[in-house]
C-alpha cells in the first residue's frame, strides 16, 4: 500500500487563489443520521399530541429535511446544503409513494397465503358452501375471456395503429385519434353496460356470456393497444421505409416486412401490457359474464367465473363460514397480482428477445 493514495486532502485556511479549494464535507453517514434524528424528533412531537402515524410521517419528514439542511449548511455551505435538502425531499417523496405499494403487497401476501394451496388451483366452487373449494374455474375463465378479448382487440388495435402511422392523413386520421383518446377515458362500467346492451338487443333479456365480457374488455383494451402500437411504429426510422421503397418494394410489403418486424419487440410489449391492464377488470365482467360455481370454459354458452368477480362475490356474499370466504377472496387477489406480474415480466422478455440486434 502506498502512502500517496491514502494521504487525506488537507484543509488549509487560506487556499492559494486560483486553485480548487478542498471543501469540508459531512462524514459519510452524518446526513442520514441527522435525517433519522429529525424523524425521531417528529415521532416524539406527534407522541406529545397523541400518537398518530400520519403526524409522525409529516413531522418527521419536515424535521428530518430541516435537520439535514441546517447540518449541511453549517458544515458544507449553501450550495451543498440545497443539494442535500432536495435529495432529502425527493427520497422522502419516493418513500411515501412506496408505502401503499409495500403495504398492499404485504397485506395481500399475509392474508392470501392462507389458501394459496393445491386445492385452490384444482377445485372449483361447485357444491362448496363453506370451507375448501378453490378458484380453478375462475382462473381458467379469466384466461379464456382475456385471451378472447386479446384476439378481438389486437387485430383491430394494431391495424388502426398501422393506419394512423402509415396511411392516415387529414380529417379521418384526426377523427380516429380523437375517438381513441375518448375511448381511453371510458369508465370500465360503461364498457360493460355497452356490451350488455348490445347483446341484450340481439339475444334478448337475461343473456350472460363469456364473449360479452370479452367484448366489454375489448372496448377498454383497443385504445390502449392503438396508443402503444402507434407510439412504437412512430419510432421506426423513416430511412428504413425509404430504403425499402428505393428497392422497388410496394408500400404494403414495406409495412408488413420491414416496419412490423423492426417494431415487433415494442408491439409485443405494448400488447402484453394492454392485456395486463384489463385482466383485473371487475365491473364490466360483473354485468356481462356473471359468476357460476362450476367450471364453464365455453365463452359462447352461459355464465363463466372470472377471478375479479370471484373475489368480489367471496368478499361481499360470504356464507356462514365467513373466514373461508374471506381467505379465498384474498388468495384470488394474490393470484391476480401474480398474473399481472407475470405478464409484465413476459413483456420485458419480449422486448429483450425481439429487439433488433446491433452487436457485432
Amino acid at each position, binding site marked *: 500500500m502506498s502512502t500517496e493514495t491514502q494521504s487525506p486532502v488537507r484543509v488549509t485556511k487560506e487556499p492559494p487563489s486560483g486553485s480548487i479549494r478542498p471543501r469540508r464535507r459531512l462524514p459519510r453517514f452524518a446526513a442520514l443520521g441527522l435525517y433519522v434524528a429529525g424523524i425521531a424528533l417528529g415521532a416524539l412531537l406527534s407522541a406529545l399530541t397523541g400518537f398518530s402515524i400520519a403526524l409522525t410521517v409529516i413531522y418527521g419528514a419536515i424535521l428530518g429535511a430541516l435537520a439535514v439542511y441546517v447540518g449541511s449548511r453549517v458544515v458544507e455551505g449553501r450550495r451543498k446544503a440545497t443539494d442535500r435538502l432536495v435529495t432529502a425531499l425527493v427520497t422522502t417523496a419516493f418513500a411515501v409513494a412506496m408505502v401503499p405499494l409495500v403495504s398492499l403487497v404485504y397485506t395481500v401476501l399475509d392474508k392470501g397465503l392462507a389458501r394459496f394451496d393445491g386445492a385452490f388451483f384444482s377445485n372449483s366452487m361447485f357444491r362448496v358452501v363453506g370451507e375448501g373449494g378453490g378458484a380453478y374455474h375462475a382462473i381458467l375463465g379469466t384466461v379464456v375471456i382475456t385471451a378472447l378479448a386479446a384476439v378481438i382487440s389486437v387485430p383491430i388495435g394494431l391495424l388502426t395503429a398501422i393506419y394512423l402511422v402509415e396511411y392516415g*392523413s387529414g380529417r379521418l386520421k384526426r377523427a380516429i385519434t380523437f375517438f381513441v383518446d375518448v375511448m381511453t377515458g371510458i369508465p370500465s362500467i360503461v364498457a360493460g353496460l355497452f356490451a350488455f346492451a348490445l347483446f341484450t338487443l340481439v339475444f334478448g333479456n337475461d343473456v350472460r356470456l363469456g364473449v360479452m365480457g370479452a367484448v366489454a374488455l375489448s372496448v377498454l383494451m383497443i385504445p390502449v393497444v392503438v396508443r402503444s402500437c402507434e407510439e412504437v411504429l412512430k419510432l421506426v*426510422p423513416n*430511412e*428504413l*421505409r*425509404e*430504403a*425499402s*421503397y*428505393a*428497392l*422497388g*418494394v*410496394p408500400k404494403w*410489403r*414495406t409495412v408488413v*416486412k*420491414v416496419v412490423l*418486424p*423492426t417494431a415487433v419487440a415494442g408491439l409485443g410489449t405494448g400488447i402484453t401490457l394492454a392485456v395486463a391492464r384489463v385482466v383485473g377488470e371487475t365491473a364490466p365482467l360483473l354485468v356481462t359474464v356473471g359468476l357460476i360455481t362450476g367450471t364453464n370454459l365455453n365463452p359462447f354458452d352461459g355464465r363463466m367465473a372470472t377471478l375479479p368477480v370471484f373475489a368480489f362475490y367471496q368478499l361481499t356474499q360470504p356464507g356462514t363460514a365467513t373466514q373461508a370466504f374471506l381467505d379465498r377472496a384474498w388468495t384470488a387477489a394474490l393470484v391476480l397480482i401474480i398474473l399481472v406480474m407475470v405478464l409484465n415480466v413476459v413483456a420485458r422478455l419480449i422486448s429483450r428477445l425481439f429487439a*433488433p*440486434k*446491433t*452487436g*457485432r
Partner: protein
Amino acid sequence: MAKRIEVSDLNIYYGNFLAVEGVNVSIEPRSITALIGPSGCGKSTFLRSLNRMHEVIPGARVEGKVVMDGQDLYGSDTDPVDVRRQIGMVFQRPNPFPTMSIYDNVIAGNRLNSKKMKKSEADDLVERSLRGANLWNEVKDRLDRPGSGLSGGQQQRLCIARAIAVEPDVLLMDEPCSALDPISTLAIEDLMAELKDRFTIVIVTHNMQQAARVSTSTGFFNLNGVGQPGRLIEFNPTEKIFSNPDQKATEDYISGRFG
C-alpha cells in the same frame, strides 16, 4: 443495362413551396454524373424526383417530364414501384435493415418482394453483389451476422450491394460518402468507377475533389436566396466545369467564393 435519362422543364414542389425550378438535362448512360451546389439548393430533391422517391413525402409533387429510354417515368400508366426497381438509390446515411443479417440485407430487394429463388441462386446473387460492392472479402465469414454490426463504410457498401442486387439500370447516390472516413470514401469511389460500366450513376456530393475525380459530367445547382427555388445553373463535362465554366456563379462556387 444502363439507360439515358432526359429531364425537361422539371419543377419540384413540397406542397406549395417550389423547391427546384426548370431543370433541363440529359444524363448519359454508362457515365457518372455529379451534382454539386450549396446546401438547400435542391440537389437531393432533384435526385429523389428521378426515381419517384420524392412523392413519398406527403404533399410533395412534380411538374414536367422525366423520360428514361423513351419511357415517361411520370406517365399516368407508370407505376412508381416499377420505376424504383429500375432506378436504385443509396442514401446519405447508411441504412441497412436492422432486423436482417448481412445476407438477408443483400437480397432484401428480392425477399421483400417475395421472389422465389433457389438457395444456390440466392447464394450466387449475394456473392456477386457483395463482390460488386467490394465487400465480399470483409464479410464472407459472417454473412449471418446483423448488418448493423458493420462499420459505417462497410454498411454503406452493404447498402450499395443491396441496391445493385436488384439489378437496376440507374444508381442514384445522395452524398454516399459524407458520413464516412477518407479510406472508406476511397473504397466507394473506386467502386463507382467499376460500376459505371454497368450502370448510369448520378451522385450528389459536397466534395468538389470527389466530383472532379469520379464524374464525367457535372451539374451545378444554385439558388438566389432563402425561399427561392433552386436551379440547375450549369451542366457540362466535368473537365470544363472545373477548368473553364460557362457561368460566373459556377466559378465562384468552385473556387470557394460564395455566400
